[in-house]
């Protein structure tokens, strides 16, 4: 978002955009209280938050990754949930070697963790025996170096050192996410309290324009533009 703001500022030098982090709930809250003009969220709005105006700007698949040596290629959402609950703790059950599973999760408060909890854990708590890391990169690093680890990261950040497992036989590829076949996908939303106008409208339009969407694509997200074209 910082990058987009910089580009936006080049085109509209009169408008100052200040970007602040803090997580989705903070972004939604700030939009309600009008602390900000545009809020951001990386999770879907809850029913009581639906009165905000929302603009989908991009999608991000959350990939479940394992070490390259791990023979397990496919898991169901239920199996993934049981792994992170600590109910399944050996790879043998899933068709892998007779080794203990080391799940790696993100820290409390992380948006990726929140999205994973919403879409995979379904109100079940992530086990406190899971290893915890505070960035996508750190999770990927552990999974790349530990044969028995499993973790979840943003699909745009998968690299050749780890392997994404298929979810009900669907890999978190660009095509599968755009077509809606891969299921752990979170939206990136811009939020306003009222119908946007003036510079706010201009900013949202810029984010949704080809220029703005290209920037989102560059950071590994799937721009909303692609989804509209596809569906």
């Amino acid at each position, binding site marked *: 978002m910082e990058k987009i703001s910089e580009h936006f500022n080049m085109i509209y030098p009169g408008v100052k955009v200040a970007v602040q982090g803090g997580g989705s709930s903070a972004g939604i809250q700030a939009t309600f209280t009008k602390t900000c003009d545009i809020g951001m969220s990386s999770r879907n709005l809850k029913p009581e938050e639906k009165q905000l105006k929302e603009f989908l700007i991009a999608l991000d698949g959350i990939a479940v990754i394992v070490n390259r040596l791990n023979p397990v290629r496919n898991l169901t959402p239920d199996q993934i949930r049981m792994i992170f609950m600590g109910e399944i703790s050996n790879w043998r059950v899933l068709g892998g070697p007779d080794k203990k599973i*080391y799940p790696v999760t993100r820290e*409390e*408060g992380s948006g990726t963790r929140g999205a994973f909890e919403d879409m995979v854990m379904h109100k079940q708590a992530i086990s406190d025996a899971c290893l915890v890391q505070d960035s996508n990169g750190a999770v990927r690093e552990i999974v790349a170096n530990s044969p*028995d680890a499993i973790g979840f990261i943003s699909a745009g950040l998968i690299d050749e050192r780890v392997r994404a497992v298929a979810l009900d036989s669907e890999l978190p590829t660009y095509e599968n996410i755009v077509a809606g076949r891969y299921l752990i996908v979170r939206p990136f939303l811009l939020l306003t309290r009222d119908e946007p106008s003036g510079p706010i409208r201009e900013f949202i339009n810029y984010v949704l324009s080809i220029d703005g969407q290209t920037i989102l694509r560059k950071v590994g997200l799937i721009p909303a533009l692609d989804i509209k074209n596809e569906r």
Partner: protein
Amino acid sequence: MKDKFAERLLLFIAFSAILSLLLITFFIFQQGIPLIFKVGLKNFLSFHWAPTQGQFGILSMVMGSLMVTLGALCVGIPLGLSCAIFLAEFSSKPVQSILKPVIELLAGIPSVVYGFIGIVVLVPLIRNLFGGSGFSVLGAGIILGIMILPTIVSISYDSIKSVPAAYRDGSFALGATRWQTILMVVLPSARSGIIAGIILGMGRAIGETMAVIMISGNALRVPHSLLDSVRTITSTIALELSYSTGDHRAALFACGSVLFIIIVILNFIAIRITRRD
């Protein structure tokens, strides 16, 4: 006139250091303590930490910090003390002039480098030798033990060196061997300095963050074995601060307050022990 001015200036600078300490203390407590009253001591002193769901139990982290620190002491005390004894009693001047700066240099290595060495060397080593994920109390203890070496060595060394030569001469005159002299005369007289060094090292181990985050795996469960992952107070603050809001953020400051109290107590003990003689 000039002297007076310089004196005032120095006084002001000295006080500004104390002032910033006071401000930091005030800020941490002012941010953290209200939360403890809000959620209640019972919640705060439980083992369940899930701040986004209203669970603020810090005990598993306190346990984690203590276990990792204990591990560091198990590694650091024998190594550090024997190193200090060797340096002070057995080594020749040229050896001393090389070894002492080298050990003190250990203190200058950034903790992220220790963490990196831990991840690249120690974690896979532990995984391959003993099993488990490798991210463990053991790994964190070993790395922290090395990190607190300079503190323990240099303070112990100084206090061993400051034992009057007459004590040693007296001991030799009574027919004691060199080893007996060290064990029964030198070490007991240097005791307070050695203990102070250990306690200061302990403070450093409890406060260490980066290396521990990288090596310990940060699982919230209280470890059952040396090979289990562990979460310390400092790592929780560093891991979660960036996205935290509201009560979660306040809870992290409350963690900071607890850490602050622990470290103040440790330093207080260290000062008391050194003052006694």
